[in-house]
């Protein structure tokens, strides 16, 4: 028995050393090496995520939207507490990336040198990660529609997660998302976060991707105390009395002008700095507060942390040139829900608008034919209206995009199709325009988004 244990320890250390050496070699080549070391370690020791020594506490952050930001904010806050934090915030969120992070947090003799791990996890990796990792806390920000080809639908992702969540893990869940808030088993300790009704909320849902519509108890149509987007909001069943869970951690009285909000922390109200006024980041802030409270960080220090924490703001940029606002928005193609949020944001601009739209995915362009079904999961309807003077659509799937816009109610006379993605920047009519939008996807950000932005900027400068 002792010999077997010794063999296992040697095998574990071999995997740790191999991963560490691989990391050193990869970094010497100028790359980050956040995935391959873990991949090697998992080949040598498939159970390494469970076998390697963990920090005293392990927090996993998952969900469709916000997991990267929340992982970053949590890591920053805990570092601010003087803790040694193991985090995969600059690397892979798959099983291999998590293995890399855990191995990076132990010494060459396998001893943990971190106080806490904050691990962002891709939802689909749950089965490979959670049963061995046995996290103390798992945060799920939300589960909304993602890639049709990869993620199918939110209930599928919820099933994957629930199948893998250990019974002992404390769940920190979004009470405004009935799919995410239903994760886990009855045995899991759980706490909920939410954002109270906002002035922009509505009383009933609309749009293509509403995944909560019927009561899980009696199938009757649900009603909404407030509806925010997709299936996010607070539901109840008028027939049987079912209600979404009440949250102990809530954001309320959001005041954008003063940059403040009130955080309800399990019965105690605290005024805090609003880290960002987008709804997604309000959820991120209250979720971070809930986790820090669960980790027994003093509440004064939780609130104080928000004074200097800031989410990354890489998804949009606004510059004013003359009298015109030039707005660049990363609009993640293949994910209808993400596009809906970009379109909704754009619709909030009250001036006369022109859009250069290039949101096909390069990744599907060369050896594939992009499955454009995702465009019908996106609410292009936000773009319809008199304030839209013109939309110029470029790229391989431009006619699909034009058709989608027309079906959404955009006047076909205001839709211009051009073969080249970049040429839209020259073809868009800027006369009388207050806001010009450059919408591009992830993989064409550099080849399309950047040159379009440059050309639009030049044209606007010339008109000053």
């Amino acid at each position, binding site marked *: 028995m002792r010999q077997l244990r010794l063999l296992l320890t040697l095998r574990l250390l071999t995997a740790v050393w191999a991963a560490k050496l691989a990391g050193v070699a990869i970094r010497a080549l100028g790359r980050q090496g956040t995935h391959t070391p873990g991949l090697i370690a998992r080949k040598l020791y498939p159970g390494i995520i469970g076998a390697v020594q963990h920090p005293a506490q392990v927090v996993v952050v998952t969900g469709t939207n916000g997991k990267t930001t929340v992982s970053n904010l949590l890591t920053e806050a805990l570092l601010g507490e003087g803790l040694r934090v193991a985090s995969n915030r600059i690397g892979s969120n798959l099983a291999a990336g998590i293995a890399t992070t855990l191995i990076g947090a132990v010494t060459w003799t396998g001893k943990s040198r971190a106080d806490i791990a904050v691990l962002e996890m891709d939802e689909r990796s749950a089965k490979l990660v959670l049963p061995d990792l046995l996290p103390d806390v798992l945060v799920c920000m939300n589960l909304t529609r993602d890639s*049709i*080809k*990869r993620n*199918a*639908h939110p*209930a*599928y992702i919820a*099933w994957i997660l629930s199948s893998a969540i250990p019974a002992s893990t404390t769940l920190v869940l979004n009470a405004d998302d009935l799919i995410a808030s239903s994760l886990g088993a009855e045995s899991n300790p759980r706490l909920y976060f939410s954002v109270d009704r906002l002035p922009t909320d509505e009383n009933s849902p609309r749009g*293509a*991707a*509403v995944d909560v*519509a*019927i009561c899980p108890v009696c*199938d*009757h*149509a649900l009603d909404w105390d407030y509806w925010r987007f997709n299936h996010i909001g607070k539901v109840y069943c008028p027939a049987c009395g079912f209600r979404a869970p009440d949250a102990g951690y809530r954001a309320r009285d959001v005041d954008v002008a003063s940059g403040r909000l009130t955080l309800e922390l399990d019965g105690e109200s605290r005024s805090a700095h609003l880290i960002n006024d987008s709804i997604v980041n309000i959820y991120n802030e209250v979720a971070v507060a809930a986790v820090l409270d669960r980790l027994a960080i003093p509440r004064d220090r939780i609130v104080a942390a928000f004074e200097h924490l800031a989410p990354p703001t890489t998804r949009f940029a606004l510059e004013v040139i003359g009298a015109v606002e030039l707005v660049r928005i990363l609009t993640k193609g293949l994910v*209808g829900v993400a596009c809906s949020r970009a379109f909704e944001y754009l619709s909030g601009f009250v001036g006369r608008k022109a859009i250069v739209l290039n949101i096909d995915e390069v990744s599907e362009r060369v*050896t*594939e*034919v992009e*499955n*454009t*079904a*995702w*465009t*019908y*999961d*996106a609410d292009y309807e936000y773009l319809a209206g008199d304030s839209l003077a013109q939309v110029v659509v470029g790229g*391989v*799937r431009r*006619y*699909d995009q*034009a*058709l989608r816009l*027309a*079906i959404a109610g955009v006047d*076909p006379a205001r*839709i211009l*199709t051009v073969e080249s993605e970049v040429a839209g920047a020259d073809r868009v009519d800027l006369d009388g325009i207050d806001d010009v939008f450059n919408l591009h996807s992830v993989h064409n950000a550099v080849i399309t988004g950047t040159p379009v932005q440059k050309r639009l900027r030049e044209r606007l400068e010339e008109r000053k």
Partner: protein
Amino acid sequence: MSRVLTIEMLFPEVANLHGDNFNITYLGQCRPDARIVRTRLTETPAFVTGAVDLVYLGPLTEHGQLKAIERLLPHKDRIEALIEAGTTFLFTHNALEVLGARIRNDEMDYDVAGVGVFELESTLRMFGRYNGKVMGTVPTVDAAHPVLGYKSQFSMVTAPESLPGFLTADRGIGRNTTTAVEGVRRGNFIGTSLIGPLLVVNPHFTRALLAQLDPDSEPTLAHESFALNAYEARLADFHDNRRWHPFERVQHESKQPNHP
């Protein structure tokens, strides 16, 4: 002289995945005079008590499939009678499986009987989602304009060869990886796993469907030029051999591929 078409969407609150309900949105824009009835899970379908020109059911979650079976099972005889009488049905993606004999899902631990209108059996592999393209001709449209569509599904379907398909795939797979026969066509019933949405990405097929629904009026396509241009661009891509992966071919039983 056109007449008012009645289109019934079954359970749109749960049968709404993959943007496929835009099949009916688009059809409604082609026929703005159409009456679209949206029947909730807890309501009795309109086709049970009255005349409906088209009955539509779209993609469901796995749980949603079971709910739809539960709600449609009491109306099995009526569905069969309507199919026999020539009523048009369009069931897309996994909605067709609801009318089959059996749905088996080992990973989610159930094996249930379907409504039983067709001799179909569906097997779901929750960690083996199939993604691919399909191109094939249908009898209602000339061969120069094949139906194009996409598969993105957990299920593979088996059925007797005697059950006619919606189409036979020239490229891509059919009901499963070993056959080119895709979906089901019986009378004016069409069941297909193809998404796109089907009626949006196939204007020639949609025109034929409109003519079938109302033979006395000239079918008109909404946003016709965009629709036709999008179809032609997609057709050119589908004819490009470089864009077809090996797993998108019909396989011999003995060497089925692992789906990416």
